[in-house]
């Protein structure tokens, strides 16, 4: 029973729950057993809230028995990145400085999942404060790729991607500041969506870089991701950057195919740094689109080569400001000290790991007197140029398509000693964050030699997630069901 249940995708499980063929309790027990059996190796979860999940499942079954199911997510076991505040449930952002912190409220995205009846299994591993591309910056434990335990799952939402790939949860939430949903989705062979900036509320999400951070779903299929996005998207008055535009209908036109779609292929994304096996799969996906009746259009994003440089000024600058709040006064760690200044510096020295410290230093430098114009202001202007490139491209195409990452998942330890090499893993994903555009990763096959998943990235017009998802679904349907990783067999 358990194995059959775990083989269902989210929407199939939802159908089975609606028909009364399975109960939320059975699904929840199946997920908890799977976590128990696999997570010692994978490390996707920082915290499993089994008792709470069982209570949520019982409540969902009780609603179903009364004929009062709240909708398609009612009774579905999900999990969220440990960057989302969860009322009364420890939330660490992957950092020692927040160890033991129990927030007094839920993030809006979490509250919306709960209101939809979802069962929350626990909190997922991540790079500390979402800073990283391999999940190796977690202060607590590494997370491993269910396709190959010697490799990273990507990051920073590594646990969110690994949990879906290992079939520990039917869907997860992550956050994406420079690729932190799309890159791990690509590495783990799952679907990951970074919506338009402002589409999903950031209220109650531990802030990293406020003008770039965005919440999004990871799931086994495009349809599952669309369903999750539908549940969390929409205006929230508690986030002043939350868009007041109504959320789209992400499922209505999902099956309408790719015929007539104009797919922009940026020549700058197929240059020297792209590993040939990854390029082969991406090109194959583009050929499938042509076969499906889409038209490939060459476009140019001339400033995208400056995206990583602009990002590593803007994101650390915003991070240095956001992370100033961890000072030992209101929550989290406090170092013993005689005076206030000593307490601040001591708390931050012992609570932050190497990557947050590095970025706080970099951001503080970029914002400091005499350097602001040369670094931060210039980077903000380059950001405008990057956005203009996309605006021009979207005059000729409906979506932009290319690789998510230059390689498949790399090995643990491979890039740890060289921060700049780690940053370059996000070379194709960062542009969408800087331009505030929606992007996603959809699996497009296994690397011919390494037998690791490759993702295709699609980037769309502002708030046009519906077209992105429709295009991704067309490819998914054409490819047929993807293989499952060894940890899910």
């Amino acid at each position, binding site marked *: 029973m358990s194995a059959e249940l775990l083989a269902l995708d989210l929407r199939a499980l939802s159908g089975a729950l609606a028909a009364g063929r399975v109960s939320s309790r059975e699904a929840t027990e199946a997920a908890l057993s799977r976590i128990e059996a696999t997570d010692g190796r994978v490390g996707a979860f920082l915290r499993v809230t089994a008792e709470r999940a069982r209570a949520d499942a019982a409540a969902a079954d009780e609603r179903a028995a009364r004929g009062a199911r709240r909708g398609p997510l009612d009774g579905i076991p999900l999990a969220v990145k440990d960057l989302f505040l969860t009322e009364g449930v420890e939330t660490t952002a992957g950092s020692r400085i927040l160890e033991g912190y129990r927030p007094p409220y839920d993030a809006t995205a979490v509250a919306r999942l709960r209101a939809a009846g979802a069962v929350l299994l626990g909190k997922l591993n991540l790079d500390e404060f979402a800073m990283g591309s391999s999940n190796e910056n977690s202060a607590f434990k590494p997370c491993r790729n269910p396709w190959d335990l010697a490799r990273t799952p990507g990051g920073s939402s590594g646990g969110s991607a690994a949990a879906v790939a290992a079939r520990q949860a039917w869907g997860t939430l992550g956050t994406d500041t420079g690729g932190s949903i799309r890159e791990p989705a690509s590495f783990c062979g799952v679907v990951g969506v970074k919506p338009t900036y402002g589409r999903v509320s950031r209220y109650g999400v531990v802030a990293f870089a406020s003008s770039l951070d965005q919440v999004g779903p990871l799931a086994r299929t495009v349809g599952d991701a669309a369903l999750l996005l539908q549940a969390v998207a929409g205006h929230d008055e508690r986030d002043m950057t939350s*868009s007041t535009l109504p959320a789209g209908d992400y499922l209505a036109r999902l099956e309408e195919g790719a015929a007539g779609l104009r797919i922009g292929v940026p020549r700058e994304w197929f240059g020297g740094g792209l590993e040939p096996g990854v390029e082969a799969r991406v090109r194959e996906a583009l050929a499938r689109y042509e076969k499906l009746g889409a038209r490939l259009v060459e476009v140019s994003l001339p400033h995208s080569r400056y995206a990583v440089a602009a990002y*590593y000024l803007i994101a650390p600058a915003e991070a240095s400001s956001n992370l100033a709040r961890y000072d030992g006064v209101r929550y989290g760690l406090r170092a013993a000290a005689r005076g206030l200044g000593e307490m601040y510096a001591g708390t931050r020295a012992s609570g932050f790991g190497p990557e947050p*410290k590095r970025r706080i230093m970099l951001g503080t430098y970029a914002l400091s007197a005499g350097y602001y114009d040369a670094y931060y202001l210039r980077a903000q202007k380059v950001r405008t140029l990057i956005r203009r490139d996309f605006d021009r491209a979207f005059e000729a195409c409906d979506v932009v398509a290319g690789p998510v990452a230059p390689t498949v998942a790399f090995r643990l330890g491979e890039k740890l000693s060289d921060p700049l090499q780690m940053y370059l893993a996000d070379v194709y994903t960062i542009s969408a964050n800087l331009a505030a555009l929606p992007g996603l990763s959809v699996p497009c096959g296994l690397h011919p030699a390494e037998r690791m998943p490759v993702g295709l990235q699609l980037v769309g017009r502002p708030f046009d997630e519906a077209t992105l998802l429709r295009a991704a679904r067309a490819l998914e349907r054409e490819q047929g069901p993807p293989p499952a990783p060894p940890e899910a067999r």
Partner: protein
Amino acid sequence: MLSIEEVRRIAALARLELSPEEERLYAGQLSAILDYVRQLEELDVSGVEPMTHALAAGEAPALRADEVREGLGAERALAAAPARQGTAFLVPRIIE
């Protein structure tokens, strides 16, 4: 190349206490990252407006009406405090 003195100055601004090893490590790593980001100097950005916010064009920040609403309340806000006294966060003495 950032000097150790500059690293110390930045750390003081950021309220970070660094060990001598960290100072050396960050001097090297931050210098390498700054060398990389200097490629932005190749671009002519004269006349380009900085992208200071990421909201959709024409969309104003959503501000709600200025009316009194129930907040978190002192007890819940203070619940995670490392040290408190009554309804206040307690910190080490500032003025002797």
